[in-house]
């Protein structure tokens, strides 16, 4: 992918609610195969920003383009058809269906067979569904009812579902929220590996800084609706403005004096 036409290009995204500017003029871009973390303290505008990318919220002004094509203001299902998969902060799966059936529904949708009234759904792309489940390490759970899964497994199932339409871009809203530390590392490692193998761009929001700094290629930092920093994990870590936002200036000052080292 050339630098001229990034996978995802966000330009001047702005959204306000009443007098509150939730997001102000946010611009960034994402290359194929790149893992980009969107971070910021609570109320920074991450979720608003995220929802405007996946079609759940419409920006007041600004553009979102996928491979040069405008997706601003489109419906979630249309954005999905253009090759954007997503996972939710609180998992959304089909609880009364089995794990395999969850993936098969996504495959049926991808194959545009949603209005096929007399085909056999249990046989539909069964092998492909199995492959996707193997990919995320859920092969042994294919016939389990989805409602019985542990939370970490649901997250992995969501990843398999999100991969069903061979997406170019994955949007993951707090992918590791509510997981045990070990599960977090596993899930992000898996995501990173898949993204690099298939050259999928990944944008995720996250509160856990260990996850962010270990797995992101690049990080963008929001505070009060504006983008305050952008760069590699090392660059962002050393950015005094980011430190101020996350730790408070007084604390940074104290820490430096006491230990004489960078925070």
């Amino acid at each position, binding site marked *: 992918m050339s630098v001229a036409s990034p996978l995802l290009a966000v330009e001047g995204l702005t959204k306000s609610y009443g007098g509150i500017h939730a997001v102000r003029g946010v611009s960034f871009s994402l290359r194929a195969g790149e893992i980009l973390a969107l971070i910021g303290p609570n109320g920074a505008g991450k979720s608003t920003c995220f929802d405007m990318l*996946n079609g759940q919220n419409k920006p007041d002004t600004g553009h979102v383009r996928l491979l040069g094509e405008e997706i601003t203001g489109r*419906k*979630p*299902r*249309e954005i*999905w*058809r253009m090759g954007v998969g*997503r996972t*939710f902060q609180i998992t*959304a*799966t*089909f*609880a*009364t*269906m*089995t794990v395999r*059936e969850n993936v*098969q*529904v*996504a495959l*049926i*949708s*991808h194959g545009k*067979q*949603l*209005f*096929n*009234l*007399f*085909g*056999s*759904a*249990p046989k*539909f792309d069964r092998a492909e569904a199995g492959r996707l489940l193997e990919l995320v390490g859920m092969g*042994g*759970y294919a*016939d*389990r*009812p*989805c*409602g*019985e899964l542990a939370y970490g497994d649901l997250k992995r199932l969501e990843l398999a*579902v999100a991969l*069903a*339409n061979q997406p170019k871009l994955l949007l993951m809203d707090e992918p590791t929220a509510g997981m045990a530390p070990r599960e977090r590392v596993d899930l992000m490692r898996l995501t990173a590996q898949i993204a690099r193998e298939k050259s999928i761009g990944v944008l995720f929001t996250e509160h856990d800084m260990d996850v962010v700094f270990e797995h992101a290629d690049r990080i963008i930092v929001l505070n009060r609706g504006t983008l305050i920093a952008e760069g590699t994990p090392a660059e962002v870590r050393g950015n005094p403005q980011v430190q101020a936002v996350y730790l408070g200036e007084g604390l940074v000052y104290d820490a430096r004096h006491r230990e004489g080292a960078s925070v």
Partner: protein
Amino acid sequence: MAFYVVQFLTGLASAASLFLVASGLSIIFGVTRIVNFAHGAFYMIGAYIAFTLTERLSGAFGFWGSIVLAALAVALIGVLVEMVLLRRIYHAPELFQLLATFGLTLMVEDLVVLIWGPDDLVGRRAPGFKGAVDFFGQNIPSYDLFLIALGPVVLGILWLLFQRTRWGVLVRAATQDRDMVAALGVNQKWLFTSVFAVGVFLAALGGALQIPRDAVHHAMDLRIIVEVFVVVVIGGLGSIVGAFVAAVLVSELNAFGILIFPKISIILVFLVMAVVLIVRPWGLFGKPEAAARKTPGLTVNPWRPLTSNERLASLAALVVAAMLPLFAGNYALTVGSEIAIFVIFAVSLHFLMSVGGLASFGHAAYFGLGAYGVAFLAKMAGLPMIVCLLLGPLLGCMGAAVFGFFAVQLSGVYFAMLTLAFAQIVWSIAFQWVSVTGGDNGILGIWPEKWAASPSHFYWLALGVAALVTIALRAMVFSPFGYALRATRDSLLRSEAIGINAKRIQWTAFVIAGTTAGIGGALFAYLKGSVFPDNLGISLSVDALVMVLLGGVETVSGAVVGAIVYKALNIWLVSQTDLSKLVLGGFIMLIVVVFPKGIVGVLEMLAQRRRKASPPGSPLIAKPIESAE
């Protein structure tokens, strides 16, 4: 001009009762999240008790005292109902709550006839408001003026109650987040009971205040509940101001609609409701609710197609059923045909409510439309039977396409209320448009042709169609479309995120279910030789719901079993007792409270337990998960 003003004032007066009942329904829903179907029944009991009391107690004080006493007495009944019935089902799926309160309605309908008799009762006129006021040559009953003033007064009192009292603060808090209120140490049980009592009091007051205007009769509950549902859908469930504005709007539409479409004034109300639903699906004053919608069932048993053994067993059952004419008489065969037709009806609703999660409370509309379709084609166009059978259901299909389009914009209780209102509208049209439908007299003389005339031949026809329909719908459950439909039921959010246009999937399912019900209705017209408005009435809609529920709402084949058992029981019951509604209502409440899984659901559970009991395997080893048949 004066005439229009009077018409306007009459509308305002009608709005008063409607507002009282609707606000009661809204308050109860706000806190308990139960749509109290029995609200119309409480309204009716209020009217009956007030009638009795006003006959006994004389004078102005006696009259007004009777009205208030009646409302208080009914509120007391409400408290009893809340404590005995509702407390058991607060955590049940909303479908069960609607059905339980509907069962109560059925029981009340028979009880009032038992106590007060079947005739209309004309009550006393209100002391002090007996005359009429002259308005430019037009008369306005002074009681109407009293009602017009009463509406805003009640609205004001309710506002004060909710804004200025401790109880009101608790109710508003519980409306927003009842779990949080419970966590703060509020005794929820009594809060719920008191809210229910207030809501029922308002309904009964509305009924009691109607007696100087209207005769008291035993069908007034259904008429008011449909209007109330329309009011809360327009005004927004949970909003009292919305209830007031919508009650005025609906009453005025009725008052003026009668001038524009004298026969079918209800169409005007329907049009307004449709527009409101498109512009603001949550009503004029309601708030869009981010309702965490649960699946209609109680457990998570994945569905699977029949195994080849089960297929053989089903086929064997069908063959046995087909041999019935060899040893059964004509009466049994007619009953058999009727049961087969109700299997069609039940599986069509099952497809919509179990597979699609859309519990229609007005499914009989499409069954009846299919029957009327046949009647029109056979009687007016004189087409041969086979053509009528093929084309008749198209009327059900068209009805489902129009109403379904609006209905699928909503979900849960709103969907239930709206489908019920639609069915009632279709019923009113069939009932009132006498020149086309024959009104209450129906359309007679729709007899099958020779090839299907004998009871055994008709039985085979009905059985064959029922088998085909059941197989086709079952195949659809396991088709890609069926999976997509179940997906929209389980999670709208996820469905949209994987490219599924949920509304279109649901609309398609609605049309499929409506057309199938129409097929049942078409056969039913030939079985009975006639078509009546009752063929699309509420009680038939509820029959369908009970059949699915009895069989097991979360199973694939429950509808078939439920239809056979329920219909056979029903036919037997009607031949045994005059109080079939009382028995049926009690039966419905019993299923909901003690038997919510239904026949097939319980059989599955038993089979599962037996299989689980045999291997002593550790629970840690991933156990094979039982599948629902």
